[in-house]
């Protein structure tokens, strides 16, 4: 049984259909890649699944067998479906440690002391040293902020982690480090959905790849095959290239 | 029957006034995204300046009207330049400008108190005499407002929908960057919108000055009324604002008849909260 399942999910904004009848399942322990050109609806799909903004226009989303289609985002998070954001998401007035501890308290229901300990563990795993942990998040580097966002998701001990372009803005060595980190997380038993524009990262990590175009699933399957699919190349690079 | 007609006429007068009060507020909100708390105070200044020119200066009503409107227009541009412009693009701009325009309201009201004092003043009416509409009598001045209000609003509508400059106001209100990329000078448009909104406030103030008494707090009740109208209509378009003015003017007149003057304001505020909770985008707003 898939841990996360989307059935005919559609989301409309006015005259625009941002997500168009999307159906797929994610198996437990899997690392599923999601690709597609700009504006193809990847982030919107993530938003719909995690309840931002509230509710799909039609269709059904099941997590762990339970429907979450009409659930508010904090409940979905507490069920064990965690996500990151593409844009720089942080709390300018909180430190790195506070950011993670807060997720442990609210997302997992730990008390303050346990949350502080859990935060320290995560900070260590994310490679954010003690000295930096007490700094305001705005003082951290781009790489550290990306790691922080992942750490604040992991501290909730999610079953499924949805990553929205974690590699954007990173340098090559940083991408390599991220790659290793994600492998470790996945090996640790966390199912991962990965949206990524850095195709090298996506192709090296994903066991299966879904390509979206104009809000709908264009292709699905083995990454190396999908990437050679004519329709995919056409969607990305334009018609006459095929 | 006669009572109903009288109530209807009285509702019409209220609706016309409310539409005038709210149009400037609505224009500034839709163009700049600023909720101008100084709107009522600008009405008051318009009335006082008109009074000073026409009564103290002895120049007559029309020069007074022109002076009142001109003064509020200039004040509007100044408020935009000093209290709104520095905050464009800030994350909490809507809320910061609520506070700065609130400060402007205090400054204008207190200055008026210092300049003109607290004694009641009144402008002469534009036209003297009463008009009887099959039994319902209103003053000719109010009849003039009932006629004038739609004309002003139609002119405003024509301006914003038919002229390039007017259209640019709407364009800036809907998408500032895209407007800038068509060659529209956005800061200038903001100043224009604020000046125009303030001019409408000034004009409303001068008209009010003929039926109410001019005091430094002349604008506080119209401000709240204008706010209710704009919220009721939905913070969107001029049409919605006018529609809401009609609904509220009529509702008020008929509520006074049935519920009495006593409970009417309470009922209207309760209706307002209900609208805000059930339809945050207003009665005629898009959801």
């Amino acid at each position, binding site marked *: 049984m898939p841990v996360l399942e989307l059935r005919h999910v559609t989301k409309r904004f006015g005259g625009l259909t941002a997500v168009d009848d999307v159906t797929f399942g994610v198996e437990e322990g899997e690392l599923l890649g999601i690709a597609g050109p700009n504006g193809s609806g990847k982030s919107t799909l993530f938003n719909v699944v995690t309840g931002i903004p509230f509710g799909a226009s039609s269709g059904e989303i099941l997590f762990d067998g339970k429907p979450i289609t009409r659930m508010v985002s904090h409940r979905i998070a507490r069920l064990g479906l965690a996500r990151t954001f593409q844009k720089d998401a942080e709390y300018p007035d909180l430190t790195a440690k506070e950011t993670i501890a807060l997720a442990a308290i609210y997302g997992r229901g730990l008390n303050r002391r346990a949350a502080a300990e859990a935060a320290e563990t995560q900070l260590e795993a994310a490679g954010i040293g003690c000295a930096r942990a007490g700094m305001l998040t705005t003082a951290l580097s781009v790489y550290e902020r990306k790691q922080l966002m992942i750490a604040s998701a992991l501290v909730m001990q999610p079953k499924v982690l949805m990553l929205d372009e974690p590699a954007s803005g990173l340098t090559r060595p940083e991408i390599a480090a991220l790659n290793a980190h994600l492998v470790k997380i996945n090996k640790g038993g966390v199912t991962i959905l990965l949206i990524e524009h850095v195709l090298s990262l996506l192709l090296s990590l994903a066991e299966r790849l879904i390509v979206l175009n104009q809000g709908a699933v264009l292709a699905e399957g083995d990454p190396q095959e999908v990437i050679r699919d004519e329709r995919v190349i056409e969607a990305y690079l*334009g018609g006459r290239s095929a | 029957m006669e009572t109903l007609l009288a109530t209807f006429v009285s509702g019409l007068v209220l609706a016309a006034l409310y539409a005038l009060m709210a149009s400037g507020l609505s224009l500034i909100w839709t163009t700049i995204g600023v909720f101008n708390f100084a709107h009522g105070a600008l009405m008051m200044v318009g009335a006082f300046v008109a009074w000073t020119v026409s009564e103290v200066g002895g120049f007559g009503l029309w020069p007074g009207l022109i002076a009142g409107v001109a003064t509020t227009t200039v004040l509007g541009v100044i408020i935009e330049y000093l209290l709104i412009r520095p905050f464009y693009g800030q994350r909490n701009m809507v809320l910061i400008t609520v506070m700065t325009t609130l400060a402007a309201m205090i400054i204008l009201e207190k200055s008026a108190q210092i300049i003109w004092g607290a004694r009641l003043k009144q402008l002469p009416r534009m036209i003297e005499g009463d008009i009887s509409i099959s039994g319902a009598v209103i003053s000719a001045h109010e009849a003039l407002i009932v006629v004038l209000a739609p004309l002003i609003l139609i002119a405003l509508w024509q301006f914003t929908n038919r002229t*390039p400059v007017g259209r640019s106001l709407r364009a800036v209100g809907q998408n500032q960057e895209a407007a800038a990329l068509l060659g529209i000078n956005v800061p200038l448009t903001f100043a224009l919108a604020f000046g125009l909104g303030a001019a409408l406030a000034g004009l409303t103030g001068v008209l009010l000055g003929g039926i109410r008494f001019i005091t430094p707090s002349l604008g506080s009740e119209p401000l709240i009324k204008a706010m209710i109208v704009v919220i009721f209509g939905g913070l969107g378009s001029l049409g919605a604002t006018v529609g809401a003015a009609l609904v509220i003017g009529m509702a008020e007149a008929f509520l006074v008849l049935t519920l009495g003057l006593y409970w009417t304001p309470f009922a209207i505020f309760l209706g307002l909260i209900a609208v805000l909770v059930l339809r945050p985008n207003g009665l005629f707003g898009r959801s």
Partner: protein
Amino acid sequence: MSILRIEGIGGGYGSVTVLRDITLTLETGENLGLFGPNGHGKTTLLRMTSGLMRPSSGTIQFDGRDITGASPSKIVTSGLVHTQQGNTLFGDMGVAETLEMAAFTKRARAGATARLEKVYALFPRLAERRKQKTRTLSGGERQMLSIGSALMCAPRLLVLDEPTLGLSPRLKEELTEALIEISNSVPLMVVEQDVELLLAVTDRQVLVEHGEIVREITATNTPDHAEIVAMYFGAQA
């Protein structure tokens, strides 16, 4: 003579540097294409060119005049017209109204009627939907309206950001034809993901990566498909 000369442009948002030292020239009669991965500074470059952002270093000259740091409306008035990426129109305005208003500058107002006819001829779909409100248009129609209103500004250089974003292949085809036709009368600078479209519409293409121009493609060294894929997705695709 060059119509656009960008020299040593750098800058970004706050402390984040997006562009580092970009130098580009667009000769008269030439169409230029830019491509490259997302988030590497193409859009920022266009925004600086049209005055929406101020570069922290470098200069931009349009038609021999320095326009660095000038206001967008000044730049439009001088004839450099920028069409933004995505859905950036006036939702509550009608199609005809938007086009009429788009001829806002004095220079654009002269001959607006003739240009309107041209736009309708170029995009017959817009002519069919004259009265319709923008928010009810489809993605492709909105894109046409964006380009149409840019044409109404009487451009002497048209800068387009991802004109085919989110369009179906059929619409892409239509749009490409229209762009080729436009490029006959107005020089273009186009940012586009679809490299094939760039190759069809523009004479010269540059690859922008990490805020820098890393490669230039001209008629003499047209890359094959595999090369494009490699440039686009990184080495090991």
